[in-house]
Structures are given as C-alpha cells and as structure tokens.
C-alpha cells in the first residue's frame, strides 16, 4: 500500500461521512437547509458541499427511491417523489393544500417581479383594488411587508417570502423565468393595437359584423 492509496481511501471515507452527515441533518430539519449552513457545520467549502448534495440527489434518483433531495428556497430538503402523490395524500387523509386563485397568482406574479412594491403600484398594474388579495397572500405567508416607501405617504412595500419559493418549488427568486419571456408577442400587440385603433376601418353608418383579415 502506498501513501497515496491510503490518502485516497481516507479521503473517500471522509467524503462518505460528510455525505451521511448531510443526509442526517436534512432529515431532522424543519426547513430547507442552506448549503452555507452545511458547509459551516462540516467545515468544508460550500462548493464541495453543493456537489455532494447534488450527488446524493443523483443517487436517490438513480436508485429510484420514494424520496428526493431537492433544492428549494435557498437550501436542500427531502421531499416525496412526484408520482407517489396519491399514496401520500391518502396517508395524510386529505391534504388541503390551498390552490391559489387566478387573481392571487397574478398579484403574486406582480409582487415577485416588481418587489418591493406598494399596494397602489399593484393596483395600477392590475386595474383592480388588490387589497383583499394582498391580505390573503400575506395571511398565507407568501408575501410580507418588506419596508416602507421613501415617498410622502410612506406606503408599505411588499415582497415575496421563503414560503412563496417553497410553494412554487423554487430555489430563489433568481430562478423565476425572465419576465422578458412573457412580454406578449407581435400578434398580441397587433390585436390590441387593432382593438384600440384610432381611425375606424369601417364606416360608422354601416357598422355591421366586424370583418377581420
């Protein structure tokens, strides 16, 4: 046996122990465990810890376990595999995870992309009084007050929470798809322009059925 071989074996043993420690810690945590916290507890570089977490997740996937290790809200946590939902729901009797309404999702989208944002700014974008929806979202814990506006009114500013990230299964708000992807395409713009056109295409006096081209 050469020294090198011993070193190699010992290193492998250590890595194995670190990975087992990560498994143990993730198991007892109530919340997603940040990689930085793991790095601190193991006294190892964060980059390595991240790599180990990904490797663990890979092994679980490969061995087709009923659980997964996922990155969410800035950390890792154990979750059940997607295809086992019926079994888990049956066990939890009936899960009442609340579905968000369209209005709530739209408001949440605005807050997520424009945070920090005031109630009035949300109202201006949605064109409706957002108070009820904002209150619901805050009660659910998906958004929270994150500050006050500098302006004269010192309006409350809202932002999204970790619970929001967990609800959508995101690691951070940076993982949100780029808003640019959702800017309506030329066809929509054209349809809207047509709908709001200033000069009529048809004679007012013969305003019959609308002919589209």
């Amino acid at each position, binding site marked *: 046996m050469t020294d090198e071989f011993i070193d190699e074996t010992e290193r492998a043993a250590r890595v194995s122990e670190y990975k087992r420690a990560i498994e143990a810690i993730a198991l*007892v*945590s*109530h*919340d997603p465990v940040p990689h930085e916290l793991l790095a601190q507890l193991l006294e190892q570089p964060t980059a390595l810890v991240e790599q180990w977490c990904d490797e663990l997740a890979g092994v679980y996937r490969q061995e087709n376990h009923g*659980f*997964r290790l996922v990155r*969410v809200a800035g950390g890792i*946590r154990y*979750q*059940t595999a*997607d295809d086992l*939902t019926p079994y888990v729901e049956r066990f939890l009797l009936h899960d*009442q*995870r*609340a*579905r*968000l*309404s*369209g*209005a709530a*999702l*739209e408001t*949440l*989208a*605005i807050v997520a992309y424009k945070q920090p944002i005031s*109630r009035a700014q949300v*109202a201006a*974008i949605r*064109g*409706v*009084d957002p*108070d009820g929806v904002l209150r619901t979202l805050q*009660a*659910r814990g998906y958004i929270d007050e994150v500050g006050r506006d500098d302006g004269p009114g010192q309006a409350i500013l809202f932002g999204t929470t970790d619970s929001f990230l*967990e609800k*959508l*299964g*995101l690691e951070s708000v940076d993982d949100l*798809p780029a*808003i640019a992807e*959702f*800017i*309506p395409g030329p066809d*929509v*713009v054209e*349809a*809207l*322009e*047509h*709908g*709001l*056109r*200033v*000069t*009529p295409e*048809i004679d*007012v006096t013969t*305003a019959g059925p*609308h002919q*589209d081209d």
Partner: protein
Amino acid sequence: MVDVATPVYEGPFDLLLQLILKEQVDIYEVNLSTIVDAYLIEIERMQSEKNLDLDVITGFLLIAATLVDLKARRLLPNQSDMDLDEELALWEERDLLLARLLEAKTFKDVAGVFSQLAEDADLSFPRAVGADERFADVMPDLLEGTSVKSLQRAAIRALTPRPVPVVDLFHVNPIKITVADAVAELLDELPRAGRISFRRLTADLGDRIEVIVRFLALLELFKQGAIDLEQPERFGDIEVVWSPGDDVDTDSILIDAYDG
C-alpha cells in the same frame, strides 16, 4: 373548471383584454359602459374601504377617458378634419393604454406559469418532521422568533373557511352611477327638452365621473338611433337632439341599456 363555463372578469383591464384578444372585437363594437362601469365599481370599492388612492383613481379615470375618447372619435362626425395636436394627444393616450394592457397581459401569462409551478410543487410533500426525542436536550426553542402577530395570522389562516369552487355567486354592491341609470334619466329628460346642449345637460352634475357616464349614455343613445349629436365648432359644446327614428322603441333601449 367553472371559470370556463361562466367567464368572469377581474376588473376593467382584464375585461378589456378579454374583449379585444378573445372576442376579437374592437373598441367600436365594445359596449363601453361595461368597462367604464367596471372602473367605477373599483373606484367605489376603494372609496367604501377608505382606501382612496388618488394616483390609482386618476389612473383609472385617465384610462376610462381615453376609451371614451377613442370611441367618441369613431362615432362622432367630422373625424376627418381632426386637429393635429388633438390627434397626437389621442395617439399618446392610446399608446399609454396599450402599454398598460400589455403589462397586464404579461403578468397574466406569468400567473399561468406560477400556477403550473405550484401544481408541480404540490405533487411532492416536504419532510418537516424535525428531530426525534433523542435530541430533546439540544433542540432549539421553536417559538423563538414567533411573534404574537404571526400566531394571530396563523389562527386567521387556519380558521378561515376554505374556499370551495362554486359558480360565481359573488355580486358586487350596486353602485350609485351606472351608464344604464344615466340612459334611463336621459330617456326621461330628453323627450321633454327636445334639444339641449351637453354642457347644460351635465350642469347639475358635480362629479367628473358622472359627466363621463352621462356622455357614455349619450353615445349609447346615439348608437341606438334615438338622438342626434351636433358639434358645430371643434371643441364647441355638443348639441343633443332628441330624434328617435321610426323603428326605435325607446322602451327596448332602456332594456338594452340595463342588459348591457
């Protein structure tokens, strides 16, 4: 999905978007009273909740006014010799409205993505069990950082009845001024007046919203062929002339107006 069977609209932007994009109608065909009523309902609601935000309301009014402007430009005569400044101003307002609608549409689409993300995330259940009793001695106080306020919020969350998907049974409070009401008033007033200027017709109205609503009601009557509108000078007062055609049944106008 209930919402498909019974389409409902969340406020004026949504309504306008759906009308233009889904129904493929343009502003000339849209019954503006519906949209303006939607704005008025929102403003009314903010007032009743003492949430009056002048910026927001001004914004709403501007949009409502732009719509009225756009539609009026199509309906009123003399549109060919429009003042250039006036026309530019209208285009500017139109662009502003377009920008807002595009923004609203953008977030609507994002909401769809959020819905999908949440649905996917809901397939999986997180472990949030904590350590077992072997670690009781070293377990941190879980109430650390829990405020009375967050406990209150949790109670509200837990005790609030879960919404059940139902056909939309929610009716907004009746608002004081609607286009339909204004039509009814005008149908009472105009036959007696015969010919009256718009300025006089709205002289007793204190609120700008009420003036807008009256104007929309006039456009409605004009479209139905119950009145003529004359504007001898540009920017001049509009003359309203009661002249129902032979085939116009004023009772049915009223019904139409109430039905939207």
